[in-house]
């Protein structure tokens, strides 16, 4: 399961990065070579940057590459690693679910209901904002999965 999620996410991220790269190149090319700048590249680039950040954060948390700050000395953690990792996983899951999923779904619903559109592409912004709850779900999934893997590893 986790492998498949990773594989899909990797392809998605690659795709987003490609789109962003191409749109920025096209923006520079059309502005300085063709002299007739494209008006949509700006929006495409900024939306793909948002998606790259959010889905990239989910991917990084799956790979355990995300930023961590040591608040408790390592010696204390070594005494009860599962307990401390459990707390960390719970905090991450709580944030992902409450802020990103619940808050993000709310945001999407409001923008969808009120039909807000992006300025130049004129696509509903709710689609763009959907990345917030989706990446929240992924982060929650990854941290739960990581925790239970660790637990079974310790117990065996």
């Amino acid at each position, binding site marked *: 399961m986790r492998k498949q999620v990773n594989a899909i996410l990797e392809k998605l991220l690659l795709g987003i990065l490609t789109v962003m790269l191409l749109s920025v190149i096209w923006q520079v090319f059309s*502005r300085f070579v063709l*002299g*007739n*700048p494209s*008006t949509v590249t*700006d*929006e495409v680039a900024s939306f793909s940057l948002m998606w790259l950040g959010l889905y990239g954060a989910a991917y990084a948390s799956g790979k355990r590459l995300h930023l961590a700050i040591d608040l408790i000395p390592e010696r204390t953690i070594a005494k009860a690693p599962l307990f401390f990792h459990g707390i960390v996983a719970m905090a991450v899951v709580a944030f992902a679910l409450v802020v990103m999923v619940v808050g993000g779904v*709310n*945001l999407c619903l*409001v*923008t969808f209901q*009120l*039909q*807000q*559109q*992006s*300025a*130049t592409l*004129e696509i509903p912004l709710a689609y763009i904002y959907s990345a917030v709850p989706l990446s929240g779900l992924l982060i929650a999934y990854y941290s739960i999965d990581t925790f239970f893997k660790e637990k079974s590893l310790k117990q065996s």
Partner: protein
Amino acid sequence: MRRGFHIALLLGLLFLGCTTTPAPKILRLGHGLDTNHPVHQAMVNLGEQLNAVSKGKLTVKIYPSGQLGAEREMLELLQIGSLDITKVSGAVLENFVPEYKVLSVPYLFKDRAHAYRVYDSDIGRQFLEKGADYRLRGLCFYDAGSRSFYTKQRPITTPQDLEGLKIRVQKSNMAVGMVKQLGGAPTPISWGELYTALQQGVVDGAENNLPSFHTSKHYEVCRFYSFDEHTAVPDVLLVGTETWRRLNAQEQQWLQEASDASTLYQRKLWVAAEKEALQTIEKAGVQINYPDKALFAAKTQAFDSLFDPASEAHRLMQAIKEIAL
């Protein structure tokens, strides 16, 4: 014994803050303008009036200069009820309330008096109330003058002069379409980045009203200001419907009356600001020219048939035109 007295004193102090009079309601107002801007001063005036008429029960706290985000973000804050009042350009509103596109139609208003008549009329009120369907209730319009082109290398005397020039526009399809029809190459760039973009030649020119040309110091880079006055998109003051519902009928009336009064005050300030801006840029050596507007208006005829004849937007556009007659 002494200690007990200290604790009792401390506890007593805690209750000093409690009084029976109700706390004054504070409405938070966010906008993106500099504090020297006439529209900001009009909103300060609104706050003072509200404070006076409500005897301090309803006040406004202003967060200027985009402290709370860009105009689009503040509209979203209004929709979810996190912010009470905001001022945005009518061009930004188009993506929230489609009918506002009408106000961006080039040469819609014949002159300033026509624009004022529209804002004060029933049609103006209909625009403001349209927003309520999208949780954005309009309070009043603020005059934002009319927008003209300013360029680096050459003056714009006919639409042909725009040929091949990259012109910065707002992030709005109406503005993009207008520059395209006039023959220029529209480039959406955010307002804050425009000075360097002009300096480095990313764009050859931009378009805005006189006070903005002046306060942004773009006249240091652009030496030509051409009064073609293609559009006159007003600024709009909006209150979130969530906030509006929280106010009682008396407070709603106070807020509406204070807004109406601030509109009139702002018009005087605006005319003075335009005069001052013109003097400053002339002194700075900017060449000002007055092209024949009819040439530009002829090129933008296509906007007349932009809206579906059966749509609300078309009806509003016709109604605005009739007011001019």
